[in-house]
């Protein structure tokens, strides 16, 4: 594997991790928003607090990881994408800011009225953020980001591939969150809540699956390079996404929630990887390849050192955090 490709792979691992881990956190906003009145939704909203509270900041760092590796490893393409896709990026950023702040504020709000306000902001921004990040992916994948100069700041993200990308992002986030929340509800002994979540997770899963595969039709015309990749090199991943998605539905249906989480992660990781492998070797589709976009060799080597270090020093504590959150002691409600 060439140096550029290794760095691009490390970058894309970050994209997948953010889509899966950060995605599950954003997705819980969908369930929070649709949980009903403050009384009816109390149990679910508390579960959401408890579920994403310890992990959302760590999961959020994957985004920073992606941005940093991108601008350090492939600086010109980063500047190009940021310039052209400035609007959806700023809207996603607004969502990121509001989501994080209002999530923290809601938990410690003094009155129900305040909590309701922060809660609405938290839940809506949890939905708009993945949507706009999805449109960014669509803009890049459909070849609308020129390397030189600034592309059209509207049509680069208001187009079929981007809009489907946005909806798919929202859907996969909600799908993941459903699978995670239902398992969390069972672990903390809230069977009634788990039942309720199960039905909704199944509905979200069916809708998301349908949209993911329906999107292949407009992408065929709108993003031919990506479409060719999806039908060629990335075809196995498309199939895997379908199979893992179906398996998740089946596992949710039969109430095997712990395993359903794994297949849900697999399905979403396959969808995201399908996009990455589908547009390979392009970094900005039809504009610049990974090899041509790469920055200085010494910097790419330095980045791999940083990534190697991350594997050694970040992964073990991250695994420890995740293990703790799944443990008996941590499944108890706050005291």
């Amino acid at each position: 594997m060439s140096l550029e490709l290794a760095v691009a792979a490390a970058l894309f691992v970050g994209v997948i991790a953010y889509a899966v881990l950060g995605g599950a956190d954003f997705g819980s906003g969908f369930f929070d928003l649709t949980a009903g009145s403050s009384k009816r939704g109390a149990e679910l909203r508390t579960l959401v607090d408890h579920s994403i509270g310890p992990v959302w900041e760590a999961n959020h760092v994957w985004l920073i990881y992606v941005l940093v590796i991108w601008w350090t490893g492939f600086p010109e393409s980063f500047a190009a994408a940021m310039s052209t896709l400035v609007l959806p990026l700023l809207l996603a950023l607004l969502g990121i800011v509001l989501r994080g702040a209002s999530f923290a504020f809601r938990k410690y709000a003094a009155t129900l009225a305040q909590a309701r306000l922060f809660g609405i902001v938290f839940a809506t921004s949890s939905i708009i953020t993945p949507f706009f990040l999805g449109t960014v992916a669509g803009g890049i994948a459909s070849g609308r980001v020129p390397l030189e100069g600034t592309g059209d700041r509207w049509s680069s993200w208001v187009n079929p591939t981007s809009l489907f990308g946005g909806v798919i992002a929202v859907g996969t986030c909600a799908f993941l969150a459903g699978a995670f929340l239902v398992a969390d509800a069972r672990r903390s002994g809230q069977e009634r809540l788990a039942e309720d979540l199960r039905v909704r997770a199944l509905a979200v899963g069916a809708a998301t699956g349908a949209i993911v595969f329906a999107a292949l039709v407009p992408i065929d015309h709108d993003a031919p390079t990506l479409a060719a990749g999806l039908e060629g090199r990335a075809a196995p991943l498309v199939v895997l996404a379908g199979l893992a998605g179906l398996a998740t539905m089946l596992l949710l249906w039969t109430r095997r929630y712990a395993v359903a989480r794994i297949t849900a992660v697999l399905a979403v990781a396959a969808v995201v990887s399908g996009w990455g492998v589908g547009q390979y070797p392009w970094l900005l589709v039809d504009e610049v390849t990974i090899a041509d976009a790469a920055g200085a060799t010494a910097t790419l080597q330095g980045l791999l050192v940083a990534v190697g270090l991350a594997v050694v020093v970040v992964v073990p504590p991250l695994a420890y955090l995740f293990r703790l959150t799944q443990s008996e002691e941590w499944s108890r409600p706050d005291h």
Partner: protein
Amino acid sequence: MLAPDVVTALTHLVTEAEPAGLMPARQQMALSLGWHIVLACFGVAFPAMIFVMHLRGIRRDDPVALGLAKRWAKVSAVLFAIGAVSGTVLSFEMGVLWPGLMGTYGDVLGLPFAFEGLAFFLEAIFLGIYLYGWGRMPPKRHVLMVLPMAVTGIVGAYCVLAVNAWMNLPVGFDVVDGEVTNVQPWAVLFNQQAFLQFAHMWVGAYMLAGFSVAGVYAVGMLRGRRDAHHRLGFIVPFAFASIAAVTQPFVGHVLGFGLDERQPAKLAAFELAETTESPSPLRLGGILVDGEVKGSIDIPYLGSLIAMNSPDKPVPGLDTIPEEDHPPVNMTHLAFQTMVGIGTLLAAAVVVFWFQRRRGRDLLERRWFLRFAAAAGPLAVIALEAGWIATEVGRQPWIVYGVMRTPEAVGDYTASLWWLLGISTVVYTAMTVGAVVVLRSMARRWRAGDADLPSPYAPEVQA
């Protein structure tokens, strides 16, 4: 066909005209950085204070200390959340506002950010473990979970300051025929000024967080709450801030060494040196109007002594520097002196406090001191902001000193970029109000005897 001189004049006009997006982009960066830097200070310095308090609680079986550590942890949950998201804003803005910088120098300046990201990762992980670990982990292990955050604060701050130091004194690349080549990212990470700039900021962070937290308890004591809780809550962060405050003048002074060679225009602006005078006076206050210094109080010799470490070596004046390389002089000068003035005041105040304490006089009994201690937090914030304004505005018109001018770095925007600043101002104001409302309500409920602060929509509250 245009005559050659017309072409030259036109090109000149085009290069001279400021891009419409420049001013809003700079203001946008100032707002978002200025806001984030306060939270970043808490991220860097608060964990060590929590650690000391928590450790005391466990070691001495001290319920007061344990209670304080627990509350501080909850406060940090709020502060670190808005710190994390406001830091993300900066990552986006690097690309959105300054594509010229990132596109050209991304692979030169990027590596420190990669290590900063790593530090931030660890910080976020241990924050999650620590915050949610109360009552769910063995106490001795739990207290250790806050320690990595103090260390990642050092690493993270160092890395960010390494990039800033590089912008002031770029190294680790060559420009050949307009192309950036021979990139040495490690030379950027370990550049010569990085450590001193880091030390200055790190110590400043401890001042800001220490004085701010101590100030909360000073206000409580002013209102008559003079229990062990308030005294301990005051003294621990105040001790951290005290060490930082007396160290800071030395660190700042050492950082200034050689500024006359590295960035003469910045030094001239700091010192308000319009002309080269030997020996240079220390010019307190004053502004430059039409090339004339007005309204300053000049102390002879002191300028040369402080800035040049010499009785008569002059501070090179602005008149030795081409006009187009001058920073906005007045803002740089006043910001610099605000920082130095407040820093000196705070250092003197803590010396007086600890000296009197040694002699058996407790200034916490004096209302005037408590009032001062309550103001010390906001003062430290102002000093830190002023310091950043001084160094950043003082580097203008360069974004990378001597290599890239700020107008070359800014994105291709019309004046509509001002809208972004307007929206950002609203969002940041709302976030500030939200944080203040929530933190104050937490304090109110704690005073009322509520320990755990369940959310108002929790099922048991709702039932």
